[in-house]
C-alpha cells in the first residue's frame, strides 16, 4: 500500500510534513536530512527539486535552489539519493517541483523513476488541472503515486470541490495569499478560511502550508487540519550547518514538536 495512504489511515494526529530543497546545503545532504527528519519525528517529507525559476516560492527557497543547482543537483542524482534513503526509512516521501522539470525529463520516465526510487507522492503547483486529467493522472495512478494540489483563500468553493474531485493525494491548504517563506502568526481571517474548507468535508486529508514556521503556528494549523507543512523555516535553520546537517535537522524538529506553553 502507498505509504501516504497508510499514514493517513493510521489516524495519527498533527502530522508534521517538512520540506527541504534537495542539494542544499550540500549536494550529499539529501540522505542525512531524510533519515534525521524521520528519526526526529517528522511524519512525511517533501523533497524539493531545485528549480531555476520557482514561481511560487519566496527568496529563501529560491536561494536554496540556486545553491543546490550550483552544487550540481540533477534529477538523476536525486533519484539515486532517494533510492539510498529509502533503504534506511519507510517514511512517506513526496517530491515537489515545477512541471517543466517533469516535462523535460519525460512524464512517463519521471513517474517511473520516482516510483522506483520509493517516492509516494508528487506536488507540481503549476500543472494545470486539465492537463493532469488528460494525461498525467493515469501515469501517476499506474505508478501508485499520489498527486496533491494546492488551494488558497482565494480559491472558489466550486474550484476547491473540483480539486477535491481529482486530487489523489492530500490537499495542500495554502494558509494565505503569498509565496512561501513569510512568517508571523495565524490570523482570525485565516482560521475562518480553514474552518470554511473543513466544512466542505473533502474526502482527502488536509495539510496546511506556507507561513508555518514554529511550534506555535504548527499547533494552530494542526487544530484545523490533519497536519502542517514547514519549509522555509527549516531551510533557514540549515544555513551555515553544512557540517552538521543531522544535528541541525534534529534540533529543528524537536523545536517544532516541543510542547507549547
Amino acid at each position, binding site marked *: 500500500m502507498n505509504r501516504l495512504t497508510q499514514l493517513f489511515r493510521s489516524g495519527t494526529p498533527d502530522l508534521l510534513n517538512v520540506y527541504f530543497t534537495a542539494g542544499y546545503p550540500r549536494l550529499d545532504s539529501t540522505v542525512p536530512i531524510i533519515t534525521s527528519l524521520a528519526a526526529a519525528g517528522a511524519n512525511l517529507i517533501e523533497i524539493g527539486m531545485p528549480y531555476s*525559476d520557482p*514561481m511560487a516560492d519566496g527568496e529563501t527557497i529560491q536561494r536554496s535552489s540556486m545553491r543546490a543547482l550550483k552544487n550540481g543537483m540533477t534529477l538523476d542524482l536525486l533519484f539515486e539519493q532517494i533510492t539510498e534513503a529509502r533503504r534506511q526509512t519507510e517514511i512517506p516521501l513526496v517530491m515537489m517541483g515545477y512541471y*517543466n*522539470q517533469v516535462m523535460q525529463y519525460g512524464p512517463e520516465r519521471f513517474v517511473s523513476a520516482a516510483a522506483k526510487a520509493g517516492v509516494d507522492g508528487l506536488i507540481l503547483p503549476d500543472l494545470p488541472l486539465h492537463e493532469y486529467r488528460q494525461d498525467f493522472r493515469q501515469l501517476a495512478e499506474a505508478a501508485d503515486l499520489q498527486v496533491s494540489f*494546492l488551494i*488558497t483563500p482565494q*480559491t472558489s468553493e466550486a474550484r476547491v470541490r473540483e480539486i477535491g474531485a481529482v486530487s489523489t493525494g492530500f490537499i495542500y491548504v495554502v494558509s494565505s495569499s503569498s509565496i512561501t517563506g513569510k512568517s508571523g502568526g495565524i490570523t482570525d481571517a485565516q482560521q475562518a478560511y480553514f474552518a470554511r474548507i473543513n466544512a466542505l468535508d473533502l474526502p482527502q486529508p488536509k495539510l496546511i502550508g506556507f507561513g508555518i514556521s514554529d511550534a506555535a503556528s504548527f499547533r494552530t494549523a494542526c487544530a484545523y487540519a490533519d497536519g502542517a507543512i514547514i519549509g522555509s523555516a527549516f531551510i533557514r535553520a540549515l544555513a551555515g550547518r553544512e557540517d552538521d546537517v543531522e544535528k541541525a535537522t534534529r534540533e529543528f524538529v524537536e523545536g517544532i514538536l516541543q510542547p507549547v506553553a
Partner: protein
Amino acid sequence: MKNPGIDVDERGYYGRFGGAYIPEMLHPNIEELRANYREMTADPAFKKEFDALLRDYVGRPSPLYYAKRLSEHYGAKVYLKREDLNHTGAHKINNTIGQILLAQRLGKTRIIAETGAGQHGVATATVCALVGLECIVYMGEVDIERQAPNVARMRMLGAEVRPARSGSKTLKDATNEAIRDWINNPENTHYIIGSVVGPHPYPDMVARFQSVISEETKWQLKEKEGREHPDAVIACVGGGSNAAGAFYHYLNDERVRLIAVEAAGLGVDSGESAATSVLGTEGIIHGSRTLLMQTDDGQIVEPYSISAGLDYPGIGPLHAFLIDSKRAEAISVTDEKALEAALFVTRTEGIIPALETAHAFAAFEQLEYGPEDVIVVCLSGRGDKDLATFTKYLDQLKDRDHE
C-alpha cells in the same frame, strides 16, 4: 467579425503552444482576467476610449515612412513603421493604454510591471500617472544600470522601481519578481505584462492591443503602394510584442513573409546568446508552453544580449507557433551587427533606433529579396535610452581607427 489574426483556443493555445501553467495562488487573478478581457475590450465604450487615447495621447497613427536612402542601399522598397514616434518612444504604450483601461474596469488600484530595456516600465509608469494609480516596476539590477535614463523617467513619473536581484538580474528575473508580487497581492493589483508572454490570456490580449500597428500599416501601404500587403515584415523579437503587432493583420496572408529577428548576443554558439528559436526547446516559462533556452533537466538558461529588451530566454507562444509551423522565419543577429546597423540607420536616415530595433535592420544582409519587394520594418523604438552604449561603441570605433 472574423479575427484577422490567429485565435487561441479556449485554454489559450496556439497549436500546442500557450496555455496557463500557473500555481493556484495566481489562478483567481488570471481567471478574472481571462473571463473578462474579450468582452470588456469589445465593448464600444472601451474601444472609443482606447482609440481616443491612442490618437490624442500617443499620437497615432504612427507614420509609415518610405526610407529612400535605406531603400537604395538595401535594394528594396523599405518602409519604416514609426513606433519610435509614439509618446514615450516605443510601441510599448499601445499595450499599456489598453491594459490600464482594463485594470480600471476590473476595479484595480495598484499596478505592477516588469521591464527589461525600461520602455515598458516607462510606458506603464506613464499610463499610471495618466489615470492616477500606484505603480511599481520590477527591473533587473543589471538593466537598471544599463538603462539609467529610463529608470530616471520612471521615477520622475512617480513609479517605484524595485531591483530584481535573483538569477541573471535581467528581464526574466524581473518577471519572476512581478509574479511573486501579484501572488502576494491577489485582490487590488493588476499586472501589466509588457510582451506577448506569460499565461493565457496575456499573449492573446497583448497581441490584440499591439495589432493596431499592422492595422494601420494596411491602409497606409494602400495609400502609398496601392496594395495593403507588403512582401515582408521585419521585426525584432524578445518576448515578441512589436512583432506580434506588426504581423497580426498579415498572419493569414501567405503572400507576406514574416521575419522575426532574435538577438544572437556574442554569437549563437558562443554560450552568450538569446536566440531562442535556434537554441530553445519546448517547455514552460512564466506560465506558458513555448520555446525556451533550457538545460536537459529543464533549468532555464540565462540569456545574453547587449539589448536589454531582447535579453529573454523565451519567446511568446504565438511566435513559437509561427516559427514551428514555418509561417515565420527566424533570423539571429549579433551585438556587433546590431550596433553597426544602429549607426548606419542613424546616419542614413537621421533616425536613432533602439538597440532592439537595430537588430531588425541588421537582418537585411541575411535575407534574399528583389528590388521591387516592399518591406516593412517595425521601427519599434527610439534609441535615446541606448546612447551610453552607442557612445561607447563610437569610442571603440575611433580607437580601432587609430590602431
